């Protein structure tokens, strides 16, 4: 049986917390599992496939114990913030292949209450590439900043163009009662915020929050008997990019490979997409991803994101929940991309609803954009 169009997201739940010093990350996983299973009209006993990404000391085995799960199929793909998008693709493949019937994907983190410096901690000496980088003080934000700098050099992209993306995300966050920051900001506000790693300012960077979420997937056939309108997984693909042997074009990001493949697998074109959920760790991530996905030409991302095109009411609304730039970013936010896409395709977007949304493109980026990163694209469709 083909993967595409035969499996569906049938439960989705985003934990409303943004700051939870009274909670543990395990607890956020568990509460999210409860929320998503209740949304699906299923029970924990129905789960026979479990997908999560190890974070710090929290591994898949520990989470299985915490939730007392005994699944037939597990996957702890850990490729950064995109992992949970990847888990959905892997769950779709596993369901289509008969390896499991009901897949649960969970995420939880207390990055904010633990005061974890997500983007500005140095690189810890670990695997081989690190010894050639860590002595020079790379940070996650610095890695993305070097891509932004190169983009500015090659195409003349400006800080004001990047700022426009942050302004748009904040406008969307204003419609999301759970968003961490909801007060409108201007391009001037972004440019006046302190530089963290040039050319990226504080407001070019995602927030640091606590939070989590969960998803439940099953076959499209079984989905017909369940409570909620199913959201079909129509296509998807993964890719990685890295410095390789030292000749890598920094603007050739993973989305350039995963995007066209995902669209082709879904049998849809760019013009068919009603809204996008694009991992926005930094403003440059959105700009570089939209170009690489092929929504505009290389170098045209700045102009593409201007003038409200990626805002609600524009031609291609992006991150209608306010994204990582304003709503939440507990360290890895791939799951929220999928949850917001599901919300839109079910017509549950409230004030932020994209009218008649039928097709959504989700793209997660994980890791360090300028050194090594993953990109996972997934096309979701209303059933």
């Amino acid at each position, binding site marked *: 049986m083909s993967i595409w169009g035969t499996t569906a997201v049938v439960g989705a739940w985003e934990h409303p917390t943004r700051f939870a010093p009274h909670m543990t990350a395990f607890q956020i996983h568990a509460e999210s599992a409860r929320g998503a299973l209740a949304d699906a009209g299923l029970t924990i006993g129905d789960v026979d496939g479990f997908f999560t990404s190890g974070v710090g000391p929290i591994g898949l085995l520990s989470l299985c114990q915490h939730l007392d799960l005994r699944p037939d199929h597990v996957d702890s793909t850990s490729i950064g913030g995109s992992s949970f998008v990847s888990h959905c693709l892997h769950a779709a493949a596993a369901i289509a292949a008969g390896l499991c019937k009901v897949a649960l994907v969970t995420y939880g983190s207390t990055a904010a209450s633990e005061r974890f*410096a997500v983007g*500005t*901690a*140095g*690189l*810890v*000496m670990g695997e*081989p*590439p690190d*010894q*050639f*980088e*860590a*002595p*020079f*003080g*790379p*940070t996650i*934000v*610095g890695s993305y*900043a*070097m*891509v932004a*700098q*190169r983009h*500015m*050099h090659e195409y003349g992209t400006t800080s004001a163009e990047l700022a426009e993306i942050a302004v748009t995300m904040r406008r969307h966050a204003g419609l999301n009662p759970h968003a961490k920051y909801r007060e409108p900001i201007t391009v001037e506000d972004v440019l006046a915020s*302190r*530089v*963290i*790693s*040039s*050319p*990226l300012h504080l407001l070019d960077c995602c927030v640091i929050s606590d939070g989590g979420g969960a998803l439940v997937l099953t076959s499209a056939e079984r989905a017909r008997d369940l409570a909620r309108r199913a959201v079909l997984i129509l296509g998807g693909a993964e890719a990685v990019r890295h*410095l*390789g*042997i*030292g*000749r*890598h074009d*920094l603007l050739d990001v993973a989305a350039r490979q995963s995007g066209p493949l995902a669209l082709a697998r879904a049998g849809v074109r760019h013009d068919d997409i009603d809204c996008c959920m694009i991992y926005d760790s930094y403003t440059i991530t959105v700009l570089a991803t939209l170009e690489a996905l092929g929504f505009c030409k290389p170098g045209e991302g700045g102009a593409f994101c201007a003038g409200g095109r990626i805002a609600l009411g524009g031609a291609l609304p992006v991150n209608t929940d306010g994204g990582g730039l304003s709503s939440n970013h507990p360290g890895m936010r791939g799951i929220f991309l999928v949850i917001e896409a599901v919300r839109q395709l079910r017509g549950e977007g409230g004030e932020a609803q994209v009218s008649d949304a039928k097709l959504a493109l989700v793209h997660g980026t994980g890791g360090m954009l*300028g*050194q090594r990163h993953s990109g996972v694209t997934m096309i979701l469709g209303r059933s």
Partner: protein
Amino acid sequence: MAETRPYKKPLPRVDEESRGYWEALARHELYFQRCRDCGTARSYPRAVCPSCLSSATEWVRASGRGTVYTFTVTQQNQTAGFRDELPYVLAMVELEEGPRLVTNLVGCAPDDVRTGMPVEVAFEDVTGEIALPKFRPA
């Protein structure tokens, strides 16, 4: 060079795949590798050529000249060592022989750094055994 204050930044781990690289740097010589079978240059050093999986490797001495491929002026890094030296310039330098390195730019004001700017290697002795290849304006 006698460094008396403790060096707090991460030191590279010298392993069997990169020992020759670090030993040369300690002598203030910058080398990269080239595959003897397919001729592909590679950076960082590793035992097997990713292009053809050959282990036949030659070390090529770099001139030390290059250009800034990209950079960022780091204003925030919580890690010990770097925290005390803000702002500093993290960069990728393209050697004139082709391969690029992740490095720091030194010897000029961070505001004066430009992409495409010509640079040359400036070895920084950090311990008796370890020197790091940093770059300064040429």
